[in-house]
């Protein structure tokens, strides 16, 4: 984890533009928006307002430059803006200079020839194709005219001045764009009578460079200090971008929130659990294979098409290309376990992976044995929640809140104790057994961890929070574990929908008569689209709500340094 330092600086208002410009060139700091923190500084700082004329002037000049480029038929583009000597000047002065340069270029006087050029081209065309009789007066005059036009054409084309003018215009354009961005940053700062105060986050490695640049831009007339993030203060986080096949999962995770400073980044773990849960609900060898093929096709197209040009839905599909492959592979795996090939057609038989007490892992067809499926679903739910709780423990240790560390341990004990009790003594229907035969088990596996949880929370935060948290954990654990029953529900619905199309097509015991192929194909397409979307959203919901609520706060701020674009 890169360590971040916060720079606080006071500079004169005449120097602020130079400072922001210098830091923007380096692209290493992220300015703090002071407008939201001004309450803390009441009495010392007032909000700094940049006069609005600056932005309006910037857009005026930019549109003038655009118009000039169009009039001269020049190509737009980018240029480096270091050509103008502006390093130590204020934004208003720079803009005045730019306007002067623009006037000097005398665009209007150059534009006139280009209007003539069009007319002259037309004239040349007509003269060129006309047969001219040299012997007549008119004929000789026309030939003379043609020669003159040719000469003029060549002389204008030889003017390499147009190339220079283009460079100048582009330089001015870059300058004005940069000044506009500087003015935008300036509007977020706080000011006293004659000076401006700003704070910025910078990675430790670039700290020296940033402070040097500030000193240089102000000729030493500044007060700069730096400090590490205070305990409890949110510092921006640089997260390593995920490898390409996890990109879709990264987008899904970060749209729910960015990891904060010491939190584990769940993207890589999600890349494993998401396909597994998707595969359980969408278990089917044939449809899984179609998903893999679709994903491979999309991945191939991703290299050919530019993402910006695609429509919205196509863009999402292209971003998720590798994800489709993973989902398809998981669907194939669970399809083999549950024995589904385009539905429970009987082509392949379920494979039993194992058995833990009353929990069968595979070896049954969900459609015919729903009770086994729901037990399996709840087991998977308990495992997934446990993973979340283990991550909570890891986060607690990383944030050095050791007093909170026993809480996830007690919670895990409660979860698995409850599950064990339910599986050995039966469910709600035999609740009386829980309180007679299983009293000892109840005490040890259920009541003890609950009391410990309340105790540890009370030690860490306070007695009222302890009891509240205890009740909350009890209700939340029950609710979230039962929520995984949707694995059974959606898996069953998927199976039954496929079965419907198989029956319509007349498929029995693994024989696919030729007449059934179009029916099964139609059914597969419908199921792929509808069930695919629904199962995807529900898997996402399981991750966002049931899983993230255990360990992920998502309150982080990404580190986006101020850089000229």
């Amino acid at each position: 984890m890169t360590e971040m330092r916060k720079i606080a600086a006071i500079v004169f208002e005449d120097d602020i533009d130079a400072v922001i410009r210098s830091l923007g060139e380096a692209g290493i700091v992220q300015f703090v928006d002071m407008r939201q923190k001004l309450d803390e500084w009441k009495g010392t700082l007032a909000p700094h307002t940049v006069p609005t004329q600056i932005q309006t002037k910037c857009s005026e000049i930019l549109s003038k430059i655009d118009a000039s480029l169009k009039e001269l038929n020049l190509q737009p583009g980018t240029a480096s803006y270091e050509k103008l000597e502006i390093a130590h000047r204020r934004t208003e002065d720079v803009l005045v200079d730019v306007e002067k340069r623009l006037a000097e270029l005398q665009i209007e006087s150059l534009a006139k020839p280009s209007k003539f050029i069009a007319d002259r081209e037309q004239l040349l065309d007509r003269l060129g194709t006309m047969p001219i009789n040299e012997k007549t007066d008119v004929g000789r005059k026309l030939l003379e005219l043609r020669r003159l036009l040719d000469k003029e054409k060549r002389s204008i084309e030889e003017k390499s001045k147009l190339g220079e003018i283009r460079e100048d215009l582009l330089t001015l354009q870059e300058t004005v764009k940069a000044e506009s961005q500087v003015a935008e940053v300036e509007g977020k700062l706080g000011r006293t009578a004659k000076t401006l105060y700003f704070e910025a986050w910078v990675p430790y490695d670039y700290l020296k460079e940033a402070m040097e640049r500030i000193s240089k831009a102000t000729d030493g007339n500044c007060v700069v200090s730096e400090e590490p993030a205070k305990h409890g203060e949110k510092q921006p986080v640089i997260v390593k971008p995920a490898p390409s096949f996890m990109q879709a999962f990264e987008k899904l995770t970060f749209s729910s929130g960015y990891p904060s400073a010491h939190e584990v980044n769940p993207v890589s773990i999600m890349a494993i659990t998401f396909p597994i849960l998707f595969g359980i609900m969408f278990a089917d060898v044939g449809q899984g294979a179609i998903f893999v093929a679709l994903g491979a096709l999309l991945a191939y197209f991703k290299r050919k098409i530019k993402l910006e040009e695609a429509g919205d839905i196509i863009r999402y599909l292209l971003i998720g290309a590798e994800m489709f492959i993973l989902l398809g592979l998981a669907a194939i795996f669970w399809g083999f376990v549950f024995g589904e090939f385009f539905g429970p057609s009987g082509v392949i038989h379920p494979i039993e992976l194992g058995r833990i007490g009353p929990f069968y892992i595979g070896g049954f067809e969900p459609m015919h044995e729903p009770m086994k499926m729901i037990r399996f679903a709840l087991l998977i739910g308990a495992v997934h929640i446990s993973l979340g709780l283990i991550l909570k423990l890891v986060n607690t240790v990383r944030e050095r809140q050791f007093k909170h560390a026993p809480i996830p341990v007690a919670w895990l004990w409660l979860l698995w104790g409850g599950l064990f009790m339910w599986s050995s003594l039966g469910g709600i229907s035999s609740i009386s057994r829980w309180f007679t035969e299983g009293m000892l088990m109840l005490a040890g596996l259920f009541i003890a961890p609950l009391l410990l949880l309340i105790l540890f929370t009370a030690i860490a935060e306070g007695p009222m929070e302890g009891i509240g948290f205890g009740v909350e954990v009890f209700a939340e654990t029950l609710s979230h574990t039962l929520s995984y029953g949707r694995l059974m529900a959606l898996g069953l619905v998927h199976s039954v929908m496929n079965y419907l199309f198989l029956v319509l097509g007349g498929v029995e015991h693994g024989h696919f008569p030729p007449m059934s192929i179009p029916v099964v194909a139609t059914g597969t397409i419908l199921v792929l689209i509808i069930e695919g979307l629904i199962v995807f959203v529900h898997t996402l919901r399981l991750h966002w709500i049931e899983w993230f609520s255990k360990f992920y706060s998502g309150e982080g701020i990404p580190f986006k340094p101020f850089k000229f674009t």
Partner: protein
Amino acid sequence: MLDPNLTGLIGILLSIGVPTISAATAIIICGTAMAGVGTEKPELLSRLIITVVLGEALAIYGLLIAFMLISKLPSFKTMEAASKGLMAGIIIAVGTGAAGAGISYAGSSLIGATAERPETYSSNVIGVVLSEALAIYGLLIAFMIIGTI
């Protein structure tokens, strides 16, 4: 009392009819809200789709219970089995009805709030998600009752 077969069939009617109406209500209200917000801020729409999809899930739960009841149709000869089927239908109907009401209100408010302040999305979505959990509870109980037919 009613003929056992008829009772069982009424259970099936309820188990597919009412959830479909609840799902439609949720989708009507949330879909309208989404379309309205989409004109102003299309980039938020992809996250807001969850309200419509969770609404649609209600119909799926109803479909599931209806499937299971139909598979038990031959055993609706005794009044006991038939009344269990009827009750299962009523349970899933009430569960999805409640969830549909919750999703409509919470969903349309979520969509409106997210349009104005996108950072409040993750807190407000809990309302929608917990409403949908109500339907799951109904589903599980109906399931267990059908298991005993």
